[in-house]
């Protein structure tokens, strides 16, 4: 994704430097720019809070949140909820990826399966799982198992929808090659449909990671006695907005770290792709 010398921004200026810096430069820049973007937003937030345009007792402020965070790190209070949340997310993502990608490819490449599952996927994605909480509790209790169900439920549908869409949009030419060589279904799925779908898969995984985090947090909000979501919940109800925001900051950092990992995988596996 990142090495295309043959595609400078238009208009082409300073071709030589560009060609030389292209690879390393761009990577660094993305990281730096991200920091800039964050700093701008945090700055704006701090300014609005300091200037009193928002009430810091509701919106907290970056300074307050960082102080609270530092305190949480200092006392070590941060680690148990963080680990608890990470555990849910990790297990949930493993299940989601292992189940979601092959299933999505299968559904996407079969008109019958697609027809059968399409409305179900729509429903499961569009009905907030909050309304199914009693059933989840009834079947899975309120422990780690139920949290896992919620994380997977939350994470798998964005992945499925993306993988299915990708599999249905695979370039016909690739499939024809597979067909002409009588490639077995599994090989076609693994070596043709999957790589051809990779941009969709990775977009799906990226969203899944986000949704897994949301799922974990919400599970903790809704049936928690542990985890970052639980911290947010209790601190908010005690109106300790700085502490709540500190937990949210941790969630945000998690989100960035997880997404970056996916981006790294993306670069690693789609280097052959021709764009950007």
């Amino acid at each position, binding site marked *: 994704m990142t090495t295309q010398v043959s595609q400078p921004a238009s208009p082409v200026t300073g071709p030589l430097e560009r060609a030389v810096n292209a690879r390393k430069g761009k990577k660094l820049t993305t990281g730096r720019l991200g920091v800039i973007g964050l700093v701008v937003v945090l700055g704006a937030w701090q300014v609005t809070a300091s200037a009193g345009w928002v009430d810091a007792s509701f919106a907290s402020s970056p300074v307050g949140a960082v102080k609270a965070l530092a305190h949480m790190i200092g006392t070590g209070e941060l680690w148990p909820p963080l680990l608890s949340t990470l555990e849910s997310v990790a297990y949930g993502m493993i299940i989601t990826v292992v189940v979601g990608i092959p299933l999505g490819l299968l559904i996407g490449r079969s008109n019958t399966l697609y027809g059968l599952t399409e409305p179900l996927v729509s429903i499961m994605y569009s009905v907030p799982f909050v309304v199914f909480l*009693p059933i989840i509790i009834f079947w899975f209790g309120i422990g780690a198992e139920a949290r896992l169900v919620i994380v997977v439920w939350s994470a798998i549908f964005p992945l499925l929808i993306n993988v299915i869409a990708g599999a249905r949009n695979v370039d016909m030419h690739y499939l024809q090659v597979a067909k002409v060589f009588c490639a077995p279904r599994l090989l076609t799925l693994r070596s043709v449909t999957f790589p051809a779908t990779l941009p969709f898969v990775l977009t799906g995984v990226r969203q899944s990671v986000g949704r897994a985090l949301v799922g974990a947090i919400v599970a903790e909000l809704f049936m928690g006695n542990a985890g970052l979501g639980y911290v947010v919940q209790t601190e908010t109800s005690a109106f300790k907005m700085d502490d709540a925001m500190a937990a949210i900051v941790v969630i945000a950092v998690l989100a960035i770290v997880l997404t970056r990992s996916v981006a790294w995988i993306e670069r690693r596996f789609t280097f052959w792709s021709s764009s950007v």
Partner: protein
Amino acid sequence: GKPAAAGGGGDAPAAAGSMSLTVGYTAIGAAYSDLYVCEDQGVFTKNGLDVKLTLLNSSSQLLAALASNSVQIGAGVAATTAAGALGGVDLRYLALPISNFYVEMWGMGDITSPEQVKGKKIGLSSPGSLGDTAVDAWLKDQGWTDKDVQKTFLKSTPAEVTALQSGAVDVIVTQPPTGTTTRNFGAHKITDFTKYPAAANAYTATASWTQANGPAVEAFVKSEVECLSMLHKDKATAIDSIRKHSGTDDPELADAAYTFFEPLWAKDPKVEPTLLAAAFAQAAAEKGTDAPADVTTYIDNGPLQSLRADGYIDSLYKS
């Protein structure tokens, strides 16, 4: 329509003298029957108010709604709203229709007495909810700490009941008439918390709004007093409203709820400073700050006093 200007912070009053307001409450249940009756019987309208009732999911959302002036008067657990007051939202407590914890503890199987709950899992709706605060009071009364039980927050009543039935928690703390439903699943009542006095269901508004909207506050308090009297005197009307608003069309359940709440509803819903002080103390402990020495500054009993003084309250209970 959106009730008020956005982003104004806590000090943006609605148009001075406006008699239309939004009242926020934080749970569905018979506890708010006074509001339901006021709306159904046109009491607000009669007193010149144009009231819209709105459900908010938690007391912290209620605080935000009050501070942004999208809700003008809110009904919530005083201990939780007090945390907001300590956090800088300048609140006034206007009325306290129920001054006990109106929740019960239900359990399954062999747990029959409160003592057996030690070390067990308690299902609650959310942190800072009435049930949560009630459990805290009860723990203190038992001489236990919150290490002695395991609180689990499940957000909604059905989730609590499900968790109880599937054994995920050992007991749950709920508002009537939910518990009565639980009975159908084999649950039994372990204890109720009505014996603990508390600023349970307090009506709150921001100081600035209260100052700018004296007539509206008076009209609201007047309506409130009248509706409480209707609850006491007219069971049929009360049950109708309960059935209509709390979603319980089962007459038996509505009756049970009424029977539970009727003794709890105040006739004179004045804000008791001692109860409020206790709420503030609890909030302060939670927050790790000092409780205010004098909570009376947070109380605005003025309209009630004058209603009492001119005999209006008494007149409601004659005949």
